[in-house]
């Protein structure tokens, strides 16, 4: 796609826009030229923005009959070489699980934005929540790894959407970008990066040397790609398949090798995937481990608490999956307690506890109902924790 055209479609360099729109802008900058989706609050604005932008740059927008079809269309389009994205919220994300698993199994690059709302079921459509953190990890059936990023601001919603596309292309796997209804509808200043500030990654392509084996890999564990229509006559199946792509679903050996490789290609490259932000890591007794919009309030509270003499540090997870357990383990060795505020009834606290492995106290601070944590309640929780430690 024409880069100058993309830049023109996005308008002013500095804007005041919503998180949903920032995701759409990020997608366009990353070279997304295909979007399939289905309307759902509070993610609809992502689709609306893509329906405005894509025709301007010669891309394709298609509104499907449901989220199952959206995810299917994404995979189909990606195999023609397109960079693809969809957006949804909790109920729609539930419907996407089937074909999300297919995308993992067939090593299809695509980006799924989930603007989370609360559940179960229809729940609170217009309110923010972080209720799908574990569905993201384990929602689709079978053994698998997933990559997921959680921005905390409008600018980061754009920046991380680009990162999501890059990781998806590099590792040929679906990447999830999770925000929430609050961030999706919040507006902040957004600065559109210049062309020379953008680093874009494209999927590894088949170089034409020798016979093309669509699922054979080198040390990177990521196979090379040849799009449909390029004459290589590739067969893609969700069944367990050999390097040629042909079904071998009764072979324990081939299944074991394939599914382990799909996990390893992510796990062996954790250093390239995992991103986080640390505050006062070397000088704290209590840590807050947080992510998403909650991290913003926590950041304020860290300063308030420190001014009151409570030595608090903060670890903000940006990459949620694969989970940065080494980092959390390192923190648990230096602090006496970890506070985990979440906009759910406890999801990321489980891998945190697993990584902490009893080395320090892990205290929950869960809030549901749609409102974000108040600074006062986080500060109070820290003070209580401080008292317990004394």
């Amino acid at each position, binding site marked *: 796609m024409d880069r100058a055209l993309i830049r023109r479609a996005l308008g002013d360099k500095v804007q005041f826009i919503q998180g949903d729109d920032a995701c759409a802008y990020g997608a366009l900058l990353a070279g997304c030229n295909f979007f399939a989706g289905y309307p759902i609050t509070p993610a609809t604005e992502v689709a609306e923005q893509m329906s405005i932008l894509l025709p301007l*740059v010669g891309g394709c927008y298609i509104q499907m009959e449901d989220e199952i079809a959206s995810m299917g269309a994404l995979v189909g389009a990606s195999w*023609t070489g397109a960079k693809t994205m969809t957006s949804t919220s909790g109920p729609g994300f539930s419907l996407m699980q089937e074909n999300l698993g297919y995308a993992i199994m067939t090593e299809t690059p695509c980006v799924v934005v989930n603007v989370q709302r609360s559940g179960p079921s229809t729940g609170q459509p217009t309110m923010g929540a972080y209720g799908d953190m574990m569905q993201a990890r384990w929602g689709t059936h079978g053994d698998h790894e997933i990559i997921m990023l959680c921005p905390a601001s409008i600018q980061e919603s754009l920046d991380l959407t680009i990162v999501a596309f890059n990781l998806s292309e590099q590792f040929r796997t679906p990447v999830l970008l999770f925000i929430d209804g609050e961030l999706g509808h919040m507006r902040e200043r957004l600065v559109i990066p210049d062309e020379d500030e953008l680093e874009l990654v494209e999927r590894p392509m088949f170089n034409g040397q020798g016979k093309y084996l669509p699922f054979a890999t080198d040390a990177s564990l990521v196979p090379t790609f040849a799009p*449909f*229509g390029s004459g290589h006559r590739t067969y893609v199946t969700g069944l367990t398949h050999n390097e*040629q792509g042909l079904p071998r679903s009764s072979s324990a050996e081939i299944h074991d090798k394939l599914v382990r490789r799909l996990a390893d290609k992510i796990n062996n490259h954790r250093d390239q995937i995992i991103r986080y932000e640390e505050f006062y890591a070397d000088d704290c007794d209590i840590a807050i481990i947080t992510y998403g919009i909650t991290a913003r309030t926590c950041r304020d509270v860290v300063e308030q608490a420190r001014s009151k003499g409570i030595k608090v540090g903060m670890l903000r997870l940006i990459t949620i999956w694969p989970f940065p357990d080494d980092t959390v383990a390192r923190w648990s060795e230096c602090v006496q307690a970890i506070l985990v505020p979440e906009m759910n009834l406890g999801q990321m606290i489980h891998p945190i506890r697993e990584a902490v492995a009893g080395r320090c106290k892990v205290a929950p601070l869960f809030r549901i109902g749609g409102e974000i944590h108040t600074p006062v309640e986080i500060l109070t929780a820290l003070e209580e924790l401080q008292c317990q430690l004394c």
Partner: protein
Amino acid sequence: MSTLLKPKTAAELRDVYLRQEMMPTIFCDGCGLGNVLNYTLWALDELQVDLDQVVFVSGIGCSSRLSGYVNADGMHTTHGRALSFASGIKAANPNLKVIVFTGDGDGAGIGGNHLLHTIRRNMDMTVILVNNYIYGMTGGQSAPTTPIGGLSTTTPYGNVEYPMDICALALALEAPYVARWTVNQPYPPIKSIAQGIAKRGFALIEMLVPCPTAYGGRNGLKGVEAIWQWYRENTVLLDDFEHIMEFGTLEEQEEIKHKLKVGVLRDTERESFEERWAKLVEQVKL
């Protein structure tokens, strides 16, 4: 890539079009899926289609295995979702020809809503929907097409549900090409599949095929000949139907009134999604 020759023999057809590593097929004796594959290959050959530019897409089920046997790009997807994947392929690269193999359970049961909306959008693709009245791969459970009273492993006392007429659905949604054939007549389906592939827009070809293993025997139709005979007795060519209804005796009309019509049920022109989208982009592109 490959030079297309017009094969004259079945062996030549096999060498040009089939993926040798996938042979033999998984199909049972008497199954009609091999015939459907054959007819499709003849149609492709008649049109001299460049196989490098064709993608075969399918869902899950016996008929959905067909995509793997053709030596072309192929996508064997999830149950009922073939048309969603196919829509993504076609919308993202309209230069590719998309042919979908699906079954009655896959295409009209679990994938019914996708069928409905893919026709509504008039995506440019050829859908060969193989109807054997049963879920064959899972061992013979009732399908949305199983006739009233039909026996299956999940309707052991006879099916109480009304079956759906898939072609009627496609006609109602204004698919530009709709045809139904039985597998025992080779030449009309070959011609019809070729017409469907050449058609710009959604083409549905419903093929009635026997499943002696999971449906026939259980329903008093032992052996493939019995099922073929059943087709002869229970279907009528559209042209014959119209002729008899206009000129036949009352007796003749009464006899064919409830028979299933086979033939080309519609052949018309309608702008496809891809054409309409391309025009829109032409208008608004910066």
